[in-house]
């Protein structure tokens, strides 16, 4: 596999302000890298640095094993799709798509052949003579993709391309982008603040916060073993439950004692956990807390808890309870008998627990 993008020790300052701190990211050919994080985390700045639209303060960026640090955007062999689509308003769709080739002096016959091919691929043949102003949001999105596709670049960059679309269209376009990625086998870097988009599209996710990379991994790594409290809380919907707990270590592993206010504390046993400090924050996904029907397997612990709120969501029902002073969500089947104010048996999947240090927020297991 060839390394397509290699970012090493990248720093970016605006005056005294550190926007990006020591970013190291690598992707292979065919990877779909998603940069995700809350607004202001530096993900768009990082993308602009990759594109060459922003200068970097230190470190290096190579694309296709060529150092790009002082190469201008047009010579980086990239194409970019913007959040606002950035279509040229006075040009027809066809001219929008071929503008780049025209600027580069590619002959008319090639331009037209390419245009035809891309228009067919994106099903926008009927729109070619229109102006961007006459198109719907989804159509503009397609044209913007066409402008990128026609360049056939080494690396595609997407800057929150779906955030201006309505919910339904967003899901459709998400699927299309995924299909496109598969068809082309192209390498892509995609910026979003939407963690679901990140999970569904990525082969590799970079979670960022405050200009610092928090974790790099496959979607399932990020989901099941978040590196710190921020990633745990940010990725997944509903979010991972983060429950403060005391730890008693004995010969058979750890005993987790979770405060329940006026009630007896909830005690869970984790036989596989080792070397935990006296206090931890337990991370557990809603689907790892079930009702009594959760498939019996090793490492299950059951306990009765008081149900605070029941939120049916069709296939699943979310049951809210209070543990360790935190609101905790459990995902149970839609036909549950759970009722608020009543006690119910819950099952905790101990093999899926994450432990975090309450002080540093870092993962312990």
């Amino acid at each position, binding site marked *: 596999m060839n390394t397509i993008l290699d970012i090493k020790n990248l720093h970016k300052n605006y005056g005294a302000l550190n926007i990006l701190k020591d970013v190291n990211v690598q992707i292979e050919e065919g990877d779909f890298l998603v940069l995700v994080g809350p607004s202001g985390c530096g993900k768009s700045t990082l993308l602009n640095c990759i594109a060459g*639209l922003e200068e970097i303060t230190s470190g290096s960026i190579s694309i296709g094993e060529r150092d790009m640090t002082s190469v201008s955007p047009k010579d980086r062999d990239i194409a970019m799709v913007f959040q606002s689509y*950035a279509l040229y308003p006075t040009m027809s769709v066809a001219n929008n798509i071929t503008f780049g080739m025209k600027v580069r002096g590619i002959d008319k016959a090639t331009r037209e052949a390419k245009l035809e091919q891309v228009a067919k691929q994106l099903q926008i043949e009927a729109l070619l003579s229109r102006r961007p102003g006459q198109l719907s949001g989804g159509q503009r999105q397609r044209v913007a993709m066409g*402008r990128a596709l026609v360049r056939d670049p080494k690396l595609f960059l997407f800057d929150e391309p779906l955030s201006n679309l309505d919910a339904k269209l967003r899901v459709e376009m998400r699927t299309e982008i995924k299909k496109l990625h598969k068809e082309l086998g192209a390498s892509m870097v995609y910026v979003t603040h939407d963690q679901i988009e990140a999970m569904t599209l990525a082969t590799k996710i970079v979670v960022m916060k405050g200009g610092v990379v928090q974790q790099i991994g496959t979607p399932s790594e990020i989901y099941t073993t978040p590196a710190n409290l921020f990633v745990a809380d940010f990725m997944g919907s509903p979010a991972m439950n983060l429950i403060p707990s005391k730890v008693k270590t004995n010969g058979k592993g750890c005993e987790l004692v979770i405060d329940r206010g006026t009630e007896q504390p909830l005690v869970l046993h984790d036989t596989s956990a080792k070397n935990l400090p006296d206090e931890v924050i337990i991370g557990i996904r809603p689907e790892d807390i079930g009702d009594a029907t959760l498939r019996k397997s090793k490492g299950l612990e059951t306990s009765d808890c008081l149900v605070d709120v029941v939120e049916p969501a069709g296939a699943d029902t979310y049951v809210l309870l209070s543990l360790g002073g935190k609101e905790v969500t459990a995902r149970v089947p839609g036909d549950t008998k759970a009722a608020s104010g009543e006690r119910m048996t819950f099952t905790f999947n101990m093999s899926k627990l994450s432990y975090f240090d309450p002080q540093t927020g870092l993962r312990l297991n």
Partner: protein
Amino acid sequence: MDKTYNSSMKTAQTVILRIGLYVILSVFALYFLMPLFVMVTTSLKHLDEIRSGSLIALPRDITFDAWQIAWSQACTGIKCEGLSPYFWNSVSLAIPAVLLSTFIGALNGYVIAQWRFKGADIIFALMLFGCFIPFQVVLLPMAKLLGIMGLAGSIQGLIFVHVVYGIGFTTLFFRNYYVSISQELTKAAKIDGAGFFRIFWSIFLPLSLPIIVVTVIWQFTQIWNDFLFGVSFSQAGTQPVTVALNNIVNSTTGVKAYNVDMAAAIIAALPTLLVYILAGKYFIRGLTAGSVKG
């Protein structure tokens, strides 16, 4: 019952308010049109009629003699060749000055709005400041500068003065227009491989028709109507029409030819009127463009 009574009251009230509004607007319109009316009618009268008749009476028999005289025979000082040579001076001064200052303003606005660089805000602030410097302040330094450049008393010199003085305004117009255009457009074009001027020509200028019209009208009106620079930096033969008009009106000896004065004034004012009539609707549109998204 009550309801219908109320609503008919309301309609009656709106109608009365409407009528009141139109009456007031008509009075204002008449008030503002009065001088123009007097000018036009006076310019079409014989001198005898002006002396004997009322100021606001319509002409008894219409004559274009005064226009003829104003255009080609009226005396501006010693020469008696009418407004026409000066009119053409103004044309050959205003057109290049308008085009140049508009073009430079567009380029400046494009740079300041889309190619952010260190100090861009300061430069823009200074240019804005330039808009508010009174004409009188620059007269002497400008005279000196024109002398050094060898442009004193020439039409080129006047063009230079007007371009320099206009850049502040034109930059302001274009900057405010371009700043409302997403910077992603520039970024997209950069990635497409277009350079600074290519992006300007192919993407920003075609977008700019409304603001170009605003700037052209503004600059044309300013430059055509200017008197102070015209009278300060010109010499016999290069004076613009405003200066010539002043000379016609002020330097006639003997009987004051009001009809000629009026005709000359209208001739001097016609081009700006014409520009406004032709492009006026874009002017309003352009001034409000960018203030409303979408």
